[in-house]
């Protein structure tokens, strides 16, 4: 019967039970929210990455040293991958390259002299889908021959590359080369055809097969070779090539379409991938299954695992607030039911039986709330995805994928709530009607904690433990460090998490005791505050002002609890908004700092032209620049960046480059040529060598710099270069030079004796360097008169004697002007280059800004290096041989830490681009020259428009486009930060709903109890509007202090949490005043609306009826 009594009781009290059930559902909903929110956040981030999958990631490679059986492998692939599978290509390759010479076509003896003067290296491929992947353009497809020679085809790009780089060598139909070093297994391969791949070279399908298109591989500064691949039939690969090579690989390249894959389908897809792994390994145990998406899947699960724990912990702390709310609501409801409890007790109900009634009631409600919790959380996540700081940043999981954790947490919250609901029944179980009457007839007594000053004791003890913790972290009890940099304490807590946290529970006891003590102190002080307010307003002598204050003062306990709850709730909301706003600002700042600008476009070498980039749609500022990444081939050694900026666009960088801008402008070397110049002419008078009778063949090279300061040598030719003792006119044509800016940089002397004596001395007189335009007009570039002598310098690698001894003005031998330049030079054997005279060379050190990391990296010194000059040498190597070397002398004009795209600790140098190129490109070839390769764009809006992206992608040479918007979105989707903000925001609204429930219940109860007093007031002449005003003033009396303190608490909470949220760029806490004002308005508005609604409902009661209610 007791169970029947319980059910009937619940039905009878269904309004109150409904209130309780709603409150419990809010509690379980909140607690179950954590796992769903984390998955929604991680899911959104993952979906973003899914949508941005590159074609390379859209594939799976099955790789093994043994062949895959098609009969075993294909069914496994099709069954496990299903509709995701788009393409399947099978090919086999020789692992690594084999090197050898290329032999003349149609030779029969492969040991005769090769046609290549160097060994090139090659790799073997064989494709099952050969016909689909290649189109024959010359010759014939590879077949199978009986004479042991393997037929092969090469790509046209390979043939052309070899021809362009090594003109004396050729690779074409009929060419042969040898695969294998063992003479017993080595095989001769003959090119039978030239093919064109169906897919462009940059298609991701060719990953790992780049040699098909030929590659120039630098082996040292002066030596390169070609590496290429050739294609044989599958049969020849197995029968002829395989025996000759060490290792081979069999590859199945599967192209997938993840367009239909969504976060909700991840678990299923993971299973499919696992099935593929298992199935493949059955037949090929040694096979590797490489899926580009596997790391993403693993990181998705790892992200959830890492994020859930702190979010659940944070949710647990907020749960305490909600449970406290539940306690107050439960206490109110039980207070209303006192007479019923007392009656049952007086009728013989034992304490246990009454507790049983309450427990079963709570259990039934808890069970319903447990079931509702995860679904309620799902609704909340969907709401958050539409409204609030996380709008657009969440991807709610499917209803069928509510995680198990959510159920467990809902169970935990429901259990806690059941205990909370049952506990108050304990004292009620012992009451009787006698106690009921005594309680209502006598004034309330001070609670026990107040009588024994528990709040003060908790504060004192808590502060003691907190001081202990502070001492452990900071080493002293002085508050000065805390006041100077409060965040440092938080960082110390973070860094010493294990020591500070669970390993010593006393560490956490302090803050907990302090918080609890403050809460109780607040309950103690609240009545005094109300009394003070009453005294303040007493002079007004207005009953409508004093009466509500007196009412609040007279019943302080519940109001004080309500104030505490409002403060806690408001703190949640404020903290959430502050964190979200700070993250938004910080995230954008982080994104821009990482990327360098709103959008950064990377170009291939020599493809970034000088154009007016600011005309691109939505662009407000544009700055082309050069970024050179130098990495020493030592593991763990950080890279060094060299940034070359255009000083014309220095305003793009704000004040960062002020010191560089203010430095002396170094003149560029040489002399610029007009676009219309067609040829260069130079008069040369050669004197024979006195020590030898052998004629000297005067050879000169005109050295020009292109716009990237890459030196190009133009031969200066004359009819008879062996003439002496008379002026010869040497000419070089510039009409075949690519368009662009050219400068005459110098003259290289490559003369030779006819008997090839390597070392000899030569004297020449130079005069009348003239530029001839296309229309025949001439411009004298250099008279070589006295005044110009200082403009000429030997290059350091020329190893000549100094200019004073080798260069002189000659007045007697000249063709134009007053004099010529007498040059005495020595041709040296084993010199890396013939001697070169530089015209107006750059002798000064290049002004440069360096980062502290750069200074440390090259041991330049500390902050006192500004003004000093240094020389740094950068060697690029393959690991053994240097393939490039850059030596430059620079003067440090300033230290810089915040260059766009660079982190403060990075090692980088910033200089004028032309100056840097002048030094960096001195010994390079076109393919490795450093050119402007980045374009930084600032935009009108954070998000680049589609028009801009399309325009940029269509530019020639673009290799990459990075937008701060993408990075910003990725940062915004940081799971932990996002989840923290979301849980606090949801916590605010749910806690607010709980408070409103509690307030509505209390208000309704209070109005019923005070109906008589209200009726008396109305009988005395008060109008209904006066009563409403009284209620509003009551509300204002307790809400107002809660608002101020609540916001301050919220800011403090956000300040404490902020350092734990990374990726905010060191942004200080920012409070969105507008949003907080809306929050306050929501809170105050909801209370007021509730008050008005209940007040209006009360107003329908007549005075007589109200008085009867009292009776």
């Amino acid at each position, binding site marked *: 019967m007791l169970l029947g009594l319980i059910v009937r*009781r619940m039905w*009878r009290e269904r309004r109150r039970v409904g209130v309780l059930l709603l409150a419990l559902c809010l509690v379980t909903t909140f607690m179950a929210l954590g796992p769903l929110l984390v998955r929604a956040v991680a899911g959104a981030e993952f979906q973003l990455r899914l949508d941005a999958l590159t074609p390379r990631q859209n594939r799976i490679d099955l790789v093994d040293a043994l062949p895959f059986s098609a009969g075993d492998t294909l069914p496994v692939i099709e069954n496990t991958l299903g509709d995701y599978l788009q393409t399947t290509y099978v090919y086999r390759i020789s692992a690594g390259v084999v090197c050898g010479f290329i032999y003349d076509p149609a030779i029969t003896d492969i040991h005769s002299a090769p046609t290549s003067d160097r060994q090139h290296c090659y790799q073997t491929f064989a494709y099952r889908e050969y016909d689909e992947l290649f189109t024959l353009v010359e010759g014939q497809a590879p077949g199978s021959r009986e004479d042991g020679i393997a037929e092969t085809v090469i790509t046209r790009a390979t043939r052309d590359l070899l021809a362009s780089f090594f003109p004396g060598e050729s690779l074409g139909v009929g060419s042969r080369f040898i695969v294998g070093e063992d003479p017993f297994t080595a095989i001769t391969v003959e090119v039978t055809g030239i093919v064109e791949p169906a897919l462009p070279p940059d298609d991701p399908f060719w990953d790992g097969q780049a040699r098909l298109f030929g590659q120039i591989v630098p082996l040292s500064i002066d030596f390169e070779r070609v590496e290429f691949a050739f294609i044989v039939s599958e049969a020849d690969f197995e029968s002829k090539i395989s025996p000759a090579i060490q290792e081979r690989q069999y590859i199945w390249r599967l192209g997938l379409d993840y367009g239909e894959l969504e976060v909700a389908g991840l678990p299923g897809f993971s299973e499919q991938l696992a099935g593929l792994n298992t199935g493949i390994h059955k037949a090929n145990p040694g096979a590797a299954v490489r899926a580009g998406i596997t790391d993403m899947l693993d990181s998705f699960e790892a992200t959830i695992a890492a994020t859930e724990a702190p979010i659940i912990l944070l949710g647990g702390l907020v749960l305490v607030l909600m449970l406290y709310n539940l306690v107050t609501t439960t206490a109110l409801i039980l207070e209303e039911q006192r007479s019923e409890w*007392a009656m049952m007790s007086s009728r013989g109900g*034992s*304490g246990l039986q009454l507790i049983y009634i309450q427990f079963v009631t709570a259990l039934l409600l808890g069970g319903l709330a447990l079931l509702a919790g995860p679904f309620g959380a799902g609704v909340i996540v969907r709401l958050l995805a539409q409204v609030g700081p996380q709008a657009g940043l969440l991807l709610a999981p499917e209803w069928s994928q509510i995680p198990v954790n959510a159920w467990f947490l809902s169970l935990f919250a429901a259990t806690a709530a059941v205990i909370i609901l049952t506990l108050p029944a304990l004292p009620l179980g012992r009451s009787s*009607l*006698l106690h009921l009457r005594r309680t209502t007839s006598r004034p309330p007594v001070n609670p026990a904690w107040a009588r024994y000053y528990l709040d003060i004791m908790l504060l004192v003890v808590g502060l003691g433990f907190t001081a202990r913790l502070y001492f452990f972290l900071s080493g002293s009890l002085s508050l000065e460090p805390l006041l100077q940099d409060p965040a440092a304490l938080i960082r110390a807590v973070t860094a010493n998490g294990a020591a500070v946290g669970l390993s010593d529970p006393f560490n956490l006891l302090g803050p907990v005791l302090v918080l609890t003590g403050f809460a109780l102190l607040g309950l103690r002080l609240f009545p005094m505050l109300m009394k003070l307010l009453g005294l303040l307003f007493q002079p007004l002598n207005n009953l409508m002002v004093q009466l509500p204050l007196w009412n609040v003062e007279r019943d302080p306990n519940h109001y004080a609890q309500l104030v505490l709850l409002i403060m806690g709730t408001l703190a949640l909301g404020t903290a959430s908004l502050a964190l979200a706003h700070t993250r938004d600002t910080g995230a954008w700042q982080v994104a821009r700092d990482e990327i360098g600008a709103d959008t950064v476009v990377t170009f291939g070498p020599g493809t970034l032209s000088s154009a007016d980039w600011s005309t691109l749609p939505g662009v407000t500022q544009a700055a082309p620049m050069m970024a050179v990444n130098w990495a020493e081939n030592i593991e763990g050694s950080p890279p060094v960046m060299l940034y070359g900026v255009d000083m014309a666009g220095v305003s793009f960088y704000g004040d960062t480059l002020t010191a560089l801008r203010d430095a002396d402008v170094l003149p560029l070397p040489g002399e610029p040529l007009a676009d219309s110049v067609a040829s260069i002419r130079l008069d040369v008078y050669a004197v024979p060598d006195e020590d030898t009778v052998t004629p000297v063949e005067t050879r000169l090279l005109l050295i020009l710099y292109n716009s990237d300061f890459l030196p190009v040598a133009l031969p200066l030719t004359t009819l008879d270069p062996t003439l002496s003792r008379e002026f010869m006119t040497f000419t070089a044509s510039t009409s075949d030079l690519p368009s662009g800016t050219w400068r005459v940089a110098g003259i290289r002397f490559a003369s030779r004796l006819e008997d090839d004596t390597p070392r000899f001395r030569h004297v020449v007189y130079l005069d009348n360097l003239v530029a001839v335009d296309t229309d025949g007009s001439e411009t004298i570039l250099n008279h070589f008169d006295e005044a110009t002598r200082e403009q000429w310098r030997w290059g350091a690698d020329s190893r000549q004697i100094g200019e004073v001894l080798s260069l002189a003005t000659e007045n007697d031998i000249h063709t134009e002007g007053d004099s010529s330049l007498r040059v005495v030079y020595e041709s040296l054997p084993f010199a890396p280059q013939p001697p070169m005279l530089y015209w107006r060379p750059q002798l000064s050190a290049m002004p440069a800004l360096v980062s502290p990391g750069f200074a440390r990296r090259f041991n330049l010194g500390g902050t006192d290096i500004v003004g000093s000059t240094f020389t740094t040498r950068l060697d690029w190597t393959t690991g053994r041989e240097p393939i490039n070397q850059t030596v430059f002398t620079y003067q440090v004009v300033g230290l810089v830490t915040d260059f766009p795209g660079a982190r403060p600790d990075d090692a980088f140098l910033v200089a004028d681009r032309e100056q840097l190129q002048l030094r960096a490109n001195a010994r390079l070839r076109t393919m490795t020259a450093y050119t402007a390769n980045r374009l930084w764009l600032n935009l009108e809006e954070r998000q680049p428009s589609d028009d801009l992206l399309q325009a940029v992608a269509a530019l020639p040479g673009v290799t990459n486009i990075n937008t701060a918007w993408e990075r910003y979105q990725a940062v915004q989707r940081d799971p932990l930060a996002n989840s923290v903000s979301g849980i606090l925001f949801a916590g605010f609204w749910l806690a607010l709903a709980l408070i409103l429930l509690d307030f509505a219940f209390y208000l309704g109860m209070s109005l019923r109890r005070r109906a008589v007093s209200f009726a008396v007031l109305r009988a005395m002449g008060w109008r209904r509007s006066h009563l409403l005003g009284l209620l509003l003033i009551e509300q204002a009396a307790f809400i107002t202090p809660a608002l101020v303190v609540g916001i301050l608490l919220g800011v403090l909470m956000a300040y404490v949490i902020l350092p734990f949220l990374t990726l905010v760029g060191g942004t200080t806490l920012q409070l969105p005043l507008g949003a907080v004002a809306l929050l306050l308005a929501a809170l105050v508005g909801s209370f007021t609306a509730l008050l008005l609604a209940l007040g209006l409902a009360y107003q329908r009661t007549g005075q007589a009826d109200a008085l009867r209610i009292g009776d």
Partner: protein
Amino acid sequence: MAFIECENLVKIHKVADLEVVALQGLDLTVERGDMIALIGPSGSGKSTLMNVLGGLDVPSAGKVRVGTHNLTEMKRRDQVNYRRNVVGFIWQQTSLNLLPYLSILENVEMPMAFNSLAGRERRERARTLLEQVGLADRMAAHPQQLSGGEQQRVALAVAMANLPQLLLADEPTGEVDSESAGMLFDTMHTLNNEYGVTIVIVTHDYQVASRVNRVVGMRDGRASIEVLRRRDEAGVALTEEEFAVLDRTGRLQLPRAYLEALEMENLVRLRLHDDHIGIYNANGDAQEGDIHE
């Protein structure tokens, strides 16, 4: 042995720093099966006595026994058992007697359910009790569907649910009309006859007080007077005598009207006569006031 025996019962209520002596050494005996009324002004200790007899309160001093239960030495479990099985209570406010969300049948069953009585037996007894109180045809009704008098009759049945030995009624007719009060009292009489339950009624209702054979008047925490009636078989009062209560210590409460009439206050003179004790005004000639044994 009397069924209810109160000896020098004292009850002091403490409210903050204030002490109120509700019972000041009350002596009272009630025989089993008696039906008595307690009357007296507010603050005389009637309700306190009821609470003590009902096991709701514990006396500060003195002795009180109901049946075999010594109420001063009862532990909590004994109190629960006592409230369940020995005593039944009816309060003046009907809202305190009945649970509004249960039917009247279920209300009567509730105390039996607390006593772990089997369902069939519960139901049977409840039906019987409701028949005895004249509400057999309204078993499915809820309290708010009944009149005040009917509710009190149901309350009576609820109080009798566990067949207690003692029935305490605190102003049972206070909120009902006179006709209903009469019906209620008749019902109580029936139950008294049927079950032999001892009934103690606190009342201001003269009609009720006049229908019991013994009325105990209380004043200042003690029994001051008793009115005893003898009736014939038809229930008509044959004799009615009012007595002053002389407690064990020999204390006597003189009617205030007598005191005022003779201007007696503070000190009086006592004189022993052969068959009575004379009480005389201390100031002046004593006017005789007889106390007969």
